[in-house]
């Protein structure tokens, strides 16, 4: 028998295990059980070591599948390790899946039920319904809810935000935000001072430096071309900020988009007629630091209405992108001028999102 290892070394080894193994190892002893189920420091340590994965929402059928991000760093075209995840509601009842934070996803059930779900531990929590405070009368057109989840370092809590957009004929677009705390299991609380802006691509929360980021245009303005803004909402203080965007090529093509790659905000153009350009804001909040990262030129057999969304930037400079054509998602990689497709099997997908396996429980108040 091996000599007894010091506790801190055992913890280091355990923090490098997949969640499934750790869940089993809760049976090893009472101290293992406590460490894996309850210890917040261990959960954080594990999260920082944990490898990233890609989650897919199948279409049709709405099954949820996942595979490890590392399978895209190989040169083999065929991706092998896709596994089906157990969801809190039946696949067919899933309406959509939003971006995750620390392994926790917001998923929306058909008929507007919202869950916070950890696919690795299979734990989930149904959130109270988020009320609409306005009357849907003639002249008011709802554009629906989206949800976003984030960690609030001030209160060591996870917050879910509901974003409701509606068009008030005569007054323009209006936005209403509410927040919900996972720890206190509160009712939805109104986010004060959030202006009436049209948030684009609300499904994507672009979490960075403790804030969500979106591209927006002022709801009231009807100028052509519209004045684009980069807006942010700080998670802890719920403070709204905005920055105007410079007139780079992706903004003049009408549809600038935002993503986060390697801890930096990036801008890109949604549709591309000539090329797909990716720009990086090197210094957070400083528009003057905007630099072009790369350009993917138009390729000949590219179907109409194809658009690209960057997903992940690997260490070696290879970039992983979603290619969406007619609502169908494909994943490609791009490096040194070569666009490589990946084969994700026979299914077709409507969503693909990067996530991390963690032990974080949606039941924070337990």
């Amino acid at each position, binding site marked *: 028998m091996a000599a007894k290892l010091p506790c801190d070394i055992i913890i*280091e080894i355990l923090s490098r295990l*997949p969640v499934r193994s750790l869940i089993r190892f809760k*049976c*090893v002893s009472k101290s293992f059980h406590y460490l894996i189920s309850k210890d917040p420091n261990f959960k954080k340590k594990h999260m920082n070591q944990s490898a990233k994965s890609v989650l897919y929402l199948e279409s049709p059928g709405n099954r949820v599948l996942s595979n490890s991000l590392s399978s895209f760093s190989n040169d083999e075209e065929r991706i092998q390790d896709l596994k089906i995840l157990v969801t809190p509601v039946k696949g067919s009842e899933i309406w959509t899946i939003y971006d995750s934070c620390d392994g926790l996803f917001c998923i929306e059930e058909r008929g507007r039920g919202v869950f916070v779900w950890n696919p690795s531990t299979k734990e989930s929590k149904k959130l109270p319904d988020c009320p609409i405070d306005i009357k849907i009368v003639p002249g008011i057109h709802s554009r629906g809810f989206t949800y976003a989840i984030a960690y609030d370092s001030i209160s060591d809590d996870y917050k879910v935000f509901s974003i409701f957009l509606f068009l008030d004929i005569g007054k323009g677009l209006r936005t209403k935000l509410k927040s919900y705390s996972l720890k206190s299991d509160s009712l939805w609380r109104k986010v004060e001072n959030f202006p009436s802006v049209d948030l684009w691509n609300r499904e994507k929360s672009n979490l960075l430096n403790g804030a969500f980021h979106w591209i927006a245009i002022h709801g009231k303005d009807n100028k052509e071309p519209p004045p684009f803004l980069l807006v942010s909402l700080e998670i802890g203080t719920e403070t709204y900020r905005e920055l105007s965007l410079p007139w780079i090529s992706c903004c003049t093509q009408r549809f600038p988009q935002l993503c986060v790659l390697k801890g930096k905000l990036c801008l890109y153009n949604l549709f591309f007629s000539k090329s797909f350009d990716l720009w990086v804001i090197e210094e957070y909040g400083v528009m003057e630091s905007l630099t072009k990262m790369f350009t993917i030129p138009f390729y000949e057999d590219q179907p109409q209405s194809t658009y690209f969304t960057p997903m992940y930037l690997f260490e070696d400079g290879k970039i992983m992108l979603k290619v969406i054509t007619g609502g169908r998602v494909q994943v490609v990689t791009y490096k040194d001028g070569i666009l490589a497709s990946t084969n994700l099997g026979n299914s077709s997908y409507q969503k693909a999102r990067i996530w991390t396996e963690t032990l974080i429980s949606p039941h924070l108040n337990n």
Partner: protein
Amino acid sequence: MSSSTELTEKKVFLLKSLDGVIFEVEESVAVQLEVIRELIEGDCARPFISLYNVTSEILALVIEYCKHHAETCSGGTSATIADEDLKTFDNEFMNVDENILLELCSAADYLDIKSLFELTCRTLASLIKDRTIIEVRKMFNVENDFSVVEEKAVRKEFAWAFK
């Protein structure tokens, strides 16, 4: 390597293991042991350093690891080739008995060699990820303090993870 560097006198250190075996190592190797690097930087390094927690068998392996890493990093090869070379070496190096791995991990922690600690922790994690509860208890020398009923309840609650 140029002739001028060959002529410079190389500083060597003598490392003494728990069981009294003395190893002669060059400075480039010794500094990879963070504990020794700190001594050198603080100008407290004696040429003779006793390492009370490491046996000669393990210290020999640790020095082999540090030597290879020092040589690969200082060689004229490009970063990508050096990277590949280290990966191959690390894989081979980890191909040892499990008890040796545990001791290497412990030694890397004590001597504060971050890359070796990371390597051994990752290797051990991938070794144990599919092991049974009994095997894990044995490996970490952990006593089962659950009652039969308690253990059964935990197993039942997380039955999916055992499939």
